[in-house]
């Protein structure tokens, strides 16, 4: 599946050929989120229009500016200009397409892209997921929708248990123990009903710690964990994981130690192995280290490949967790780097999927800057160190 973008906000040129798993790296404000939000708009435009209509947003049938503002955030209709050209899987898209959908009055209840935004902590900042209308229009749609999805899920998708982590029927043993060891350290995440509203708290040694008093990494991880619950294991009656074909995760590493990032990486691999197309934006080299290893061993025979993967993730060859890597070697994993391009006068997305350390192109060999500093430190110590 290809997404071609020209002259959309800061993005001057992007030709993205999505893999089963696609990583996006690049400095802050280099268009990664905009490209991913655009992808959701292209796939879920009918559902997005229906949702906004359900919440009584004014949707013009002749001027696309207001729906674009409701979606990207107030004032951001300006991302589109006369020179904007967008194609998804060979089909051109323009904001006019949204007007046609608005005019059709069609109602669509299912979305295909589960979007986990970078600012996900906003969705449960006071210990409970906010509803869609609690955000103002300056907040991008993907945050409001994510929060609303978690709200619905927490109301009816967790069963009767007041325990959110660990949960008996959710997450595989390896993921559960790894999340416990690296993030919650035997603390239990519970739904506290003692106040006026049901709120998420962390129970440690008999103390019930309110959400905002958790560590930064725990707070960042919690909405991601709920999203993983929505999409894996036990089916829920309120959020149907089978409806989704894509999962987009922005900066899953936020606030996490590299060992905890590995737990998240295993969950991402599981999502891909369960058939979702997964797109991830990141500033962490851990994910690319996995892709680099994958690239360098995917030509091995299946059994040898799995043995190497088990060693990489420290998984016992005979455990059920090792099944996670069945058939993984045939998956397509891509990596794009969004970078300022002088001649274009804006951002270009560069395909750096090989991550080949011998490449003459430093965007590829130094992984879009993620490994430049380690290399330079080595050079400096070689030249000046005692």
């Amino acid at each position: 599946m290809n997404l071609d973008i020209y002259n959309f906000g800061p993005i001057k040129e992007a030709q993205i050929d999505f893999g089963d798993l696609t990583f996006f790296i690049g400095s802050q404000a280099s268009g990664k989120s905009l490209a991913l939000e655009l992808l959701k708009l292209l796939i879920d435009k009918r559902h997005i229009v229906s949702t906004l209509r359900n919440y009584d947003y004014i949707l013009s049938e002749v001027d696309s500016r207001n729906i674009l503002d409701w979606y990207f955030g107030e004032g951001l209709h300006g991302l589109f200009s006369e020179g904007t050209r967008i194609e998804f899987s060979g089909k051109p898209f323009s904001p006019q397409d949204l007007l046609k959908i608005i005019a059709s009055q069609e109602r669509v209840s299912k979305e295909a892209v589960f979007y986990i935004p970078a600012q996900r902590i906003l969705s449960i900042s006071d210990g409970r997921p906010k509803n869609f209308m609690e955000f103002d229009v300056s907040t991008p749609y993907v945050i409001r929708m994510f929060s609303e999805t978690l709200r619905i899920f927490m109301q009816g998708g967790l069963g009767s248990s007041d325990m959110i982590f660990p949960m008996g029927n959710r997450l595989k043993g390896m993921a559960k123990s790894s999340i416990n060891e690296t993030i919650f350290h035997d603390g239990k995440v519970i739904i506290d009903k003692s106040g006026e509203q049901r709120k998420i708290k962390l129970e440690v040694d008999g103390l019930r710690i309110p959400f905002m008093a958790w560590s930064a990494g725990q707070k960042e991880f919690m909405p991601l964990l709920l999203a993983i619950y929505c999409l894996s294991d036990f089916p829920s009656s309120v959020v149907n994981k089978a409806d989704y074909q894509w999962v987009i995760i922005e900066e899953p590493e936020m606030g996490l130690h590299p060992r905890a990032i590995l737990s998240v990486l295993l969950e991402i691999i599981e999502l891909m192995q369960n058939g979702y197309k997964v797109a991830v934006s990141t500033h962490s080299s851990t994910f690319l280290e996995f892709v680099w290893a994958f690239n360098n061993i995917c030509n091995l025979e299946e059994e040898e490949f799995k043995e190497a993967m088990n060693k990489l993730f420290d998984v016992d060859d005979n455990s059920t967790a090792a099944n996670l890597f069945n058939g993984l070697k045939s998956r397509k994993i891509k990596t794009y780097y969004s970078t300022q391009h002088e001649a274009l006068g804006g951002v270009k997305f560069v395909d750096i999927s090989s991550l080949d350390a011998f490449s003459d192109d430093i965007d590829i060999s130094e992984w879009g800057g993620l490994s430049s500093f380690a290399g330079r430190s080595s050079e400096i110590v070689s030249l000046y160190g005692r």
Partner: protein
Amino acid sequence: MGNTFKEAVEETPDIAKGYAGGLRALGGNAQVVSAKDTRLIDGSVDIDGCTSTLYPNASRWDYAIGYDGKAYFLEVHPADTSNVKEVIKKAEWLKNWLENKAPRLKQIAADKAFYWVASGRCCILRGSVQSKRLAQSNVLLVNKLNLPV
């Protein structure tokens, strides 16, 4: 029980007379190797020394060590960033030599890795582009060669 490593060395014409018991072929560099059970060391050979007249201009690899029926390949070399290219060239030479001149040794290789221990300080940071180039060339930079790996 026979000594597979010794047999493999003696069946390799380029190094047939180079077999040494224990870690003796390594001379002073033996200190960079430690073995869990020294009784399982099958011997060693100075590949560089044995092949210097045969391939005087080649970037030759230093040593092969036998441990518990398997062969490990060790280079002891300075480890500044400027040495990375040299060691990768040595690894390429070794791969080619094992393939064409020492198939018996290749057959008993413990794994695909070639081990590089820094003589002196090590200035190559894990995660650097230099360390990735080494890994892509099957060279593993280690503080010490602990056998078995």
